[in-house]
């Protein structure tokens, strides 16, 4: 239980990429007063939690209903993770930053719970069970919220360099996790 929880947390940490969230949170919350900034963080986390819990609960049964085998979803989810990781590593972050209007949308999804996190969640539920996955998600969302609420402190500690460097390193990890799932998926096919 503890071992799979640590595994789930490490995997979710790399797809969540809290430092990346902080980067976007700072740019998206510019011009808001402190009250609204806090509200934005809380609302984004709440929405992200809804999406992630829904994926955890409904993802597996839905795939089963559609007749998708676990191995197929491992391959598909793995490909998703590879692409997400590549985008984090090499991507130009500018498009996502221009969240006009309600900035909760780019923040909650796709940033916190995008295709990567949703794939990861469903893969985890079938791998380590739903309860451990939900527990790991709750912890991870709490970590993300704490990072956002202390966004400026995080930036002070890591510096602008760290804020640019660390998300990219985690991006490589996401690619590797994706490759791992793709090969695992093919392993159970062949």
């Amino acid at each position: 239980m503890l071992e799979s929880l640590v595994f789930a947390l490490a995997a979710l940490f790399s797809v969540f990429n809290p430092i990346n969230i902080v980067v976007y949170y700072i740019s998206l919350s510019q011009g808001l007063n402190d009250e609204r900034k806090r509200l934005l963080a809380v609302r984004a986390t709440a929405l992200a939690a809804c999406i992630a819990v829904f994926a955890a609960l409904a993802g597996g049964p839905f795939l089963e209903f559609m007749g998708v085998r676990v191995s197929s979803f491992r391959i598909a989810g793995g490909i998703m993770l590879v692409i997400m990781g590549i985008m984090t590593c090499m991507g130009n972050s500018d498009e996502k930053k221009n969240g006009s209007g309600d900035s909760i949308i780019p923040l909650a999804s796709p940033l916190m719970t995008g295709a990567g996190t949703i794939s990861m969640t469903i893969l985890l539920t079938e791998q380590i069970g739903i309860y451990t996955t939900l527990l790991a998600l709750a912890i991870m969302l709490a970590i993300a919220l704490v990072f956002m609420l202390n966004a400026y402190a995080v930036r002070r500690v890591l510096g602008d360099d760290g804020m640019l460097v660390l998300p990219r390193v985690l991006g490589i990890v996401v690619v590797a996790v994706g490759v791992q799932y793709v090969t695992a998926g093919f392993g159970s096919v062949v």
Partner: protein
Amino acid sequence: MDVDYIVKAAIALFIIMDPFSSLPVFIALTRNIPNGNRGLAANKAALVAGVTLLVFTLIGPAFLSVIGVSMQSFTIAGGVLLLLMAISIVMGISYGKGEEHKVDVAVVLIAVPLITGPGAMTTAIILAAKYGTDSVMAAIALSTVATWLMLRSAEPIYRAIGKSGNEVLSRISGLLLAAIAVEFIRTGLSI
């Protein structure tokens, strides 16, 4: 710790760090700052690149084992990223386009992902598994210093080989990188 290993690892890292394609970008991104400060920018870029590489080499493998990712998967992942990097170098697509014009940001972009990219990190980890961590630490220091010297001498080198010479060199190193990338993917798949 073997001098032979250190030299081999340092050469491999130097090729992956590819200062030849970093140089034109470095000059382009630092053209607005006064001559004395270009050296400072080179110092910072090399420092960020070297430290990132060292830290990733030290804690990267432990993290991978917690997350349950095998070295093969990581090698394939690195190969895929490297191949994309190589393609972007050969096709002449540049990084950090449209980013802020602050020199600090530019310098970090040169350090990561241009000098210490996914390729260099993957290479360092793979070399550490092959030659031992201490040898690779020394190799990282060596290749970072070599890269730093190249960045320091950015202007004279650029003038000597000229714009088109640099262009050609970058394409060739891109092609070399593509070959290394395919080799990584094949190693990961063991075919």
